[in-house]
């Protein structure tokens, strides 16, 4: 692996993806809705979050395909793929959790009194979002 320029030409500033803040706002919408007993709001928020999370992963795959450099090219490339790839793995896990939450929401498992599953899934999703803000600013902006 060679030490290379920062960043390589394949990556442009502000290149990336669905803005994660939109994704997590919908998750907060889902949580707020079920606290008020609004099941339709919960279902809408979860489906929207699921779709935007899947869009995020899809754009990440497209970005990897178009970058023009690979993990072994430079030290930046290795760091870039390490950071964004690990985040992508966390998003994938989050999507699996969201999928289970969405199925349970449509089966009527959550209510205003009992929504612990939504609460915990939401905390994980926000953790993933905070990590993306750090990665995004470090890799794409600064």
């Amino acid at each position, binding site marked *: 692996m060679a030490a290379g320029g920062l960043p390589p030409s394949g990556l442009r500033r502000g290149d990336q993806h669905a803005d994660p803040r939109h994704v997590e706002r919908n*998750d*907060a919408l889902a949580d707020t809705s079920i606290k008020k007993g609004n099941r339709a709001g919960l279902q809408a928020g979860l489906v929207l979050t699921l779709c935007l999370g899947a869009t995020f992963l899809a754009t990440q795959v497209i970005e990897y395909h178009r970058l023009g450099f690979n993990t072994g090219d430079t030290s930046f490339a290795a760091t870039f793929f390490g950071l964004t790839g690990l985040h992508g793995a966390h998003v994938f896990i989050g999507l699996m959790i969201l999928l289970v939450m969405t199925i349970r929401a449509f089966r009527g498992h959550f209510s205003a009194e009992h929504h612990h599953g*939504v*609460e915990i899934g939401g*905390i994980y999703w*926000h*953790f993933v*979002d905070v990590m993306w*803000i750090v990665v995004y600013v470090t890799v794409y902006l600064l």
Partner: protein
Amino acid sequence: MRNPFRSEADAFRFVWLTIGYFVLIFVGSLINLWFGIAVFIVVTAVAFRWFFRRDTREAPVKQTTGREPAREYRILVVANETVGGPELLSEIRERSAAVTPACSSSAGAQLTAPALGHPTRTTLVQPRRRASTRASRRCWLPA
């Protein structure tokens, strides 16, 4: 110490704080690289100061007050085999006005009814009920 991420709302607030933190640093670095570093040091110091000086005491546990009228009585149902034990019986005698087996009347008749269709359950329940009643009588409970 109170967990700062106890709820989804706490985590959501932390997301916005993180966004604000990085926006300040990014805007500072756009103006001038060294200004960006200075902003980073200042906002990090502010974050540390807030974290270590915040109120970490647990919020008092909310007590709910009973809504029932003053002359309303409460019924404790003990639904396991330990009611035959002398320690529990003496505790019940100390705290309660009257004790009665739950299967003594209509519920007991239902259990023995053939319509229930569970003869094994009936044969299991009845000896246990008789043993509990005998144990209650031994402790001079009005069973």
